[in-house]
């Protein structure tokens, strides 16, 4: 997030696009409600009619994958009405002329035809966003999980800069991050091309800096992102994989493709607190302790680095992940000896400018928001205050592109995937929590009443959903929250594995993110086929569960 969670309360307008905030980030949604109580305007654009849509001043359900067209349409009208922040654009940004030229083509009529949103609604959205500053834009994976993910993000930035909303309190472009420490994992260099603090591996100075600190020569060519590791496994180029605290068997696209790739590995090492679907395929499983059993820090979506503390002793013969990493490194001939996580933090902070001013003592209970470059720096609630990190804010002229896959005669439905309130990601944590599992014990597929009527489907009927990649079963949930012609599947349920259907080849060309939010599928009623029974997984003892699952 460019801005802070608490600032959302003081926004004049909140524009939420591609985030089901009440389900996925409830305590951020709370700030949205509080802002509404204080008089803020709310705009919601989501292919589904989400809970926040009910409270919005304008809520639209645009067609899957049409975000760039919708945002360009808003910008077209803002410029046509002279609502843009002319002084801000002049002083703080560059390449405005190209943006103006591109969005000129996105007339309301053209945008309405692409997105399915009425001209009236597009006009309301543009006026409300532009005339109620500061306006905070919130997005999540509804924006990023597309072949045009980077284009979508840049379009959000264009809109925010056009109205002078970046670098002001209560405004900003605010991605809501899904995992508790996804921000920290990126900040710490858990990416193929950067060390901690986004220092490039192929930059001579940063490569030398880390090589000197670590006492080893370091590879200077960026490595493979996860979406390229899978083809590399299939081609036999990637032979060994070390997976820490992840369950790619459920989270990665095109599961059949991934299963085949994992089978080709010579060695799969998995480190987790549960025997996840992925761990069941491992050669060696390292049993990590939970977050309540160790010390460390997490960095949240507003860049706030906060301490976690050990509450109980590690379960049985489990170890904190940091100790496992130290032991493995030492066994590989590179001694890693740290007294505690604080010593690791201090080494990291000394090499990472945005964390350089942080110590455990300074983090206290509230944490600190990066950049925090020195010991006297109070942290940074919002970025780009006086000028952009790169100098001038750059507008990117972006044209609309269709998603990789559109419905056709054979696969007539749009499919989108997502999350629901009681469960989390692949369900490894929530489905074994009795008070959460009771809220929703099985997967389901949402289908519009019109489609259900046409297909003679009743609520609860078992449906087979098939794409070009594979097929899976789920019971129907008839609901008007989806548009006619669109289906929605939650991703949490291993026995209804959504990612059998999604594509591992439809990737954003820059970010390499898969297009989980758009696939083309067909459906048929399960009762119309010869008995194919959905796979059951999960036995009581994890060691026994392996025998039952019998993969690899």
């Amino acid at each position: 997030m460019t801005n802070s969670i608490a600032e959302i309360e003081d926004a004049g307008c909140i524009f939420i696009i591609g985030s089901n905030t009440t389900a996925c980030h409830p305590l951020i949604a709370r700030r949205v409600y509080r802002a509404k109580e204080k008089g803020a305007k709310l705009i919601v654009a989501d292919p589904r009619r989400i809970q926040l849509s009910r409270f919005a001043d304008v809520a639209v359900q645009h067609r899957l994958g049409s975000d760039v067209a919708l945002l360009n349409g808003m910008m077209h009208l803002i410029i046509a009405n002279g609502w843009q922040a002319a002084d801000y654009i002049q002083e703080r940004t560059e390449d405005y002329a190209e943006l103006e030229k591109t969005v000129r083509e996105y007339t309301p009529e053209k945008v309405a035809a692409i997105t399915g949103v009425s001209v009236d609604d597009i006009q309301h959205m543009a006026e409300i966003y532009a005339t109620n500053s500061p306006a905070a834009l919130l997005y999540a994976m509804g924006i990023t999980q597309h072949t045009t993910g980077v284009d979508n993000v840049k379009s959000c930035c264009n809109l925010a800069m056009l109205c002078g909303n970046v670098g002001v309190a209560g405004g900003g472009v605010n991605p809501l991050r899904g995992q508790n420490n996804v921000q920290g994992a990126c900040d710490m260099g858990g990416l193929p091309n950067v060390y901690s603090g986004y220092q490039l591996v192929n930059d001579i100075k940063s490569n030398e800096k880390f090589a000197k600190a670590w006492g080893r020569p370091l590879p200077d060519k960026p490595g493979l992102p996860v979406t390229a590791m899978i083809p590399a496994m299939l081609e036999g180029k990637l032979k060994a994989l070390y997976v820490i605290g992840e369950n790619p068997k459920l989270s990665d696209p095109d599961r059949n493709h991934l299963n085949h790739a994992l089978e080709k590995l010579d060695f799969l090492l998995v480190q987790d607190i549960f025997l996840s679907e992925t761990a069941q395929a491992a050669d060696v499983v390292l049993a990590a302790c939970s977050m309540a059993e160790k010390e460390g820090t997490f960095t949240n979506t507003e860049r706030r680095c906060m301490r976690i503390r050990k509450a109980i002793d590690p379960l049985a013969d489990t170890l904190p992940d940091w100790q496992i990493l130290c032991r493995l490194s030492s066994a590989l001939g590179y001694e890693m000896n740290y007294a505690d996580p604080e010593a690791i933090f201090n080494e990291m902070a000394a090499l990472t400018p945005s964390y350089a001013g942080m110590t455990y003592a300074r983090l206290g209970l509230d944490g600190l928001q990066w950049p925090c470059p020195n010991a006297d720096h109070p942290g940074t609630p919002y970025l780009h205050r006086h000028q952009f990190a790169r100098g001038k804010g750059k507008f990117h002229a972006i044209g609309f592109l269709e998603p990789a896959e559109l419905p056709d005669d054979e696969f007539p439905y749009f499919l989108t995937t997502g999350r629901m309130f009681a469960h989390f990601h692949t369900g490894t944590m929530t489905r074994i929590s009795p008070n959460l599992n009771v809220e929703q014990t099985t997967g389901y597929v949402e289908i519009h009443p019109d489609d259900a009527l046409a297909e003679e489907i009743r609520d609860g009927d078992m449906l087979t959903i098939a794409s070009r990649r594979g097929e899976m079963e789920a019971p129907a949930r008839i609901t008007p929250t989806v548009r006619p012609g669109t289906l929605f599947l939650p991703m949490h349920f291993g026995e209804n594995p959504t990612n059998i259907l999604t594509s591992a080849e439809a990737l954003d060309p820059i970010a390499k993110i898969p297009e989980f939010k758009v696939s083309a599928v067909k459906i048929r009623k399960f009762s119309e086929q010869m008995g194919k029974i959905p796979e059951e997984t999960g036995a009581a003892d994890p060691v026994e569960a392996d025998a039952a699952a019998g993969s690899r």
Partner: protein
Amino acid sequence: MECELVPSVCSYCGTGCGVLFEVIDKELAGTLPMKTHPVNEGKLCIKGWNLHEHINSPLRLKQPLVRSFGRFLKTGWDEAIAIAARRFREIIDQYGPESVGVLVSAKITNEENYLAMKLARAVLGTNSVDHCARL
């Protein structure tokens, strides 16, 4: 009876709500919202209130496992680490460091992510490091 409240941060979504773990006689008994925390100001969602449940789950792994003839055998740390190190070393010696990939995690701490990245780059010699930010 011994009762302790230990400050921590919820490990579900990226919001980062401050929690207090309720520890009674060394058992994790519950999760409470931290009243003073700048993010959640004394509130939690349904997942946060039940954060301790996954930690107390009987399905937790209790020791390292090694596959032998298709089945997992329970083992100790020395053996598990030795096997992992030997297999990585053999594969790197035969196919080079680029034949190894590491998926770090959006669930482990900053310190652990830093170490995992350091292990991949300085020890295994590969930049093929990634995690599920995209997924």
